[in-house]
């Protein structure tokens, strides 16, 4: 399953909910969700540990809008809207954790 997370882990529990309840899959960070992908953040260790079960992607334009494009955690794949569409198409189901 593709898990779409659009809220910062420093603001809402959306990402924590995915990590706590999903068996694995792919997590796409969009909008304020991209703050989870920032290197040196308090959530970095948690994201890195979760990479054992999940593949992480982050939306490039949302990283750029927040000045974070050059501070992405190693192992998080940066993608554009075309890649967003591909991720949705590649996964049979997608869940937006609003």
């Amino acid at each position: 399953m593709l898990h779409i997370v659009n809220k910062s882990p420093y603001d809402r529990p959306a990402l924590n909910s995915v990590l706590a309840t999903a068996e694995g899959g792919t997590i796409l960070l969009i909008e304020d969700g991209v703050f989870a992908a920032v290197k040196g953040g308090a959530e970095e260790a948690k994201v890195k540990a979760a990479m054992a079960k999940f593949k992480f992607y982050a939306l490039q334009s949302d990283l750029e809008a927040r000045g974070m494009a050059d501070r992405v955690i190693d192992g998080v794949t940066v993608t554009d809207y075309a890649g967003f569409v591909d991720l949705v198409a590649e996964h049979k189901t997608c869940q937006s954790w609003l």
Partner: protein
Amino acid sequence: MKFSILVNEGPYTHEASDTAYQFAKAVLAKGHEIFRIFFYHDGVNNATRLTTPPQDDRNIVSRWSKLAQENNLDLVVCVAAAQRRGIVDEGEMKRNGKDATNLAPGFRISGLGQLIEAGIQSDRLVVFGD
């Protein structure tokens, strides 16, 4: 592949309307089909033609209308959510005794069944909201 999109948040609130719009454009650019875009909850505020943002800002409503016109998209606004928030077309104006309409071009007001149908008919339903 056939996509549908659900927008649950109003324009100029967080980012959902913008993300949904950019996603819709990317879906079409990839050669996929969009079966329907459904506007629910505060998302119905994407459909008022009276929106007047500053000239140097994007006009989220007219942007939807243009995308719909150019790609023959079905933009559906939930009727109950629209009534609560004062989104009115000709039929709703008459039915509810109002003196004006404000539904933007390219949108139509219908029921929640349209969302269920979109879920059934589409390969993917992607949700954007707060």
